[in-house]
């Protein structure tokens, strides 16, 4: 029951992003291994996903994620402020990626059943 409730919470958090769900997942995944500033986020996301987020899109998503308490800014003297995941953000990302993996696994199983293994 508690799991369902938490899943609902995280699903709501992601569904609120609409067209920003993609950038939000990429940013949270990038921050999963530690804090990064905007430029480092762009580079990391481009490296692991092949998608280069434009500056406006990146900061729009950062602003939304910060507003929802999924990430937070880290104190820094640098002009480029790093961001890190919050506990809520880590929970939301884990739940969202698990749901994505279930869909991916199901799709791959059905593909293999109909079209044969790759």
């Amino acid at each position, binding site marked *: 029951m508690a799991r369902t409730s938490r899943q609902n919470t995280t699903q709501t958090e992601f569904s609120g992003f609409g067209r920003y769900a993609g950038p939000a997942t990429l940013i949270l995944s990038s921050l999963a291994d530690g804090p990064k500033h905007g430029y480092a986020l762009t580079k990391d996301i481009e490296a692991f996903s092949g998608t280069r987020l434009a500056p*406006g899109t990146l900061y729009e998503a950062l602003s939304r994620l910060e*507003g929802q308490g999924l990430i937070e800014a880290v104190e820094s003297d640098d002009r480029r402020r790093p961001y890190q995941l919050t506990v809520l953000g880590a929970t939301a990302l884990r739940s969202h990626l698990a749901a994505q993996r279930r869909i991916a696994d199901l799709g791959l199983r059905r593909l293999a059943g109909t079209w044969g293994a790759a």
Partner: protein
Amino acid sequence: MLRWYPREWRARYGEEFTELLVSDMSERSRSVRTPADVAVNGIVARLAYAGLGQSTLEDAERSRRTLLAFACAAAVFVTVGLGIWAQLTIGWQWSPPDTVATSVAMFVMSYSVLVLLALGAMAVVPLAWPTARAALRRRNVVGPLALTLAGAGILIVGSRHFANGWPGTGGHQWAHQGLVPGGLAAFVWAATLFVTAYWAHPGALLAFPAPEIAWMVLSPVALACVALGAVGLGRQIELSPRLLHYEARLAQLGGMVMFVFLVGASLWVVDGGPGPRNLFHVGAIDIAGIGVMVVALVTAGRALQLIGPNPGARAAR
């Protein structure tokens, strides 16, 4: 390019965003993609900081801005709606409509206007004390208050003046059979005279008396002064969680009544007829007006969705 973003956003993210923009532009060939991306997301951020989306604002401030956004959308809706309604009530001064649809539409719209005005008064009156308190605390309320009162004064005096020139106020032999008192119909007609298709026909517009054309230019400016002043006031006064909750409840009721008004207006547009002497003819300006009202209602609905069922409790946290 940072000008696309609201002031608070620039204060919070401006420096780091500029750094990223410079790096991005130095690494990529020139294209319209980056400026377009900045412009689109800047507008999205402006909407968010106006209370119509997620932002880093405190809950209380966000709720207050969302209420203000609702009020602005409602003001646009009511202005355009009154323009349409006044045209029909003036028509009824001369002759009643000859279709059931237009008659029903008129009753629905008239009662909706009455309820909306009552809700508006109920929303504004409790704000008098927080406004006075803000003035005593030397917050910047004098300027916005003066702007609001000046705009309202011009609107009232001007509308009274031009309403008196309309034969529907009682001076004409036909003007005795309206749905609402002739003076009220003429007043609202004069106040919303600028909601007209004549702007698209300058030749016909120039045939109007010069004072009337001047009023058609001045009245929306006065209305804008009222709106800007009210928004300025709304940003300065502090709403207690209880008052916030009360205003949110009124906003929900207002949203429902606006929807009912729109149904009435749409009924006239879809099923009404031109009526006797073409008095209830549906013109392009009315179709455009319905479109503007739909957009305003959708915006108001989005604000209501964001305000939620209990903004007072959220703001108190």
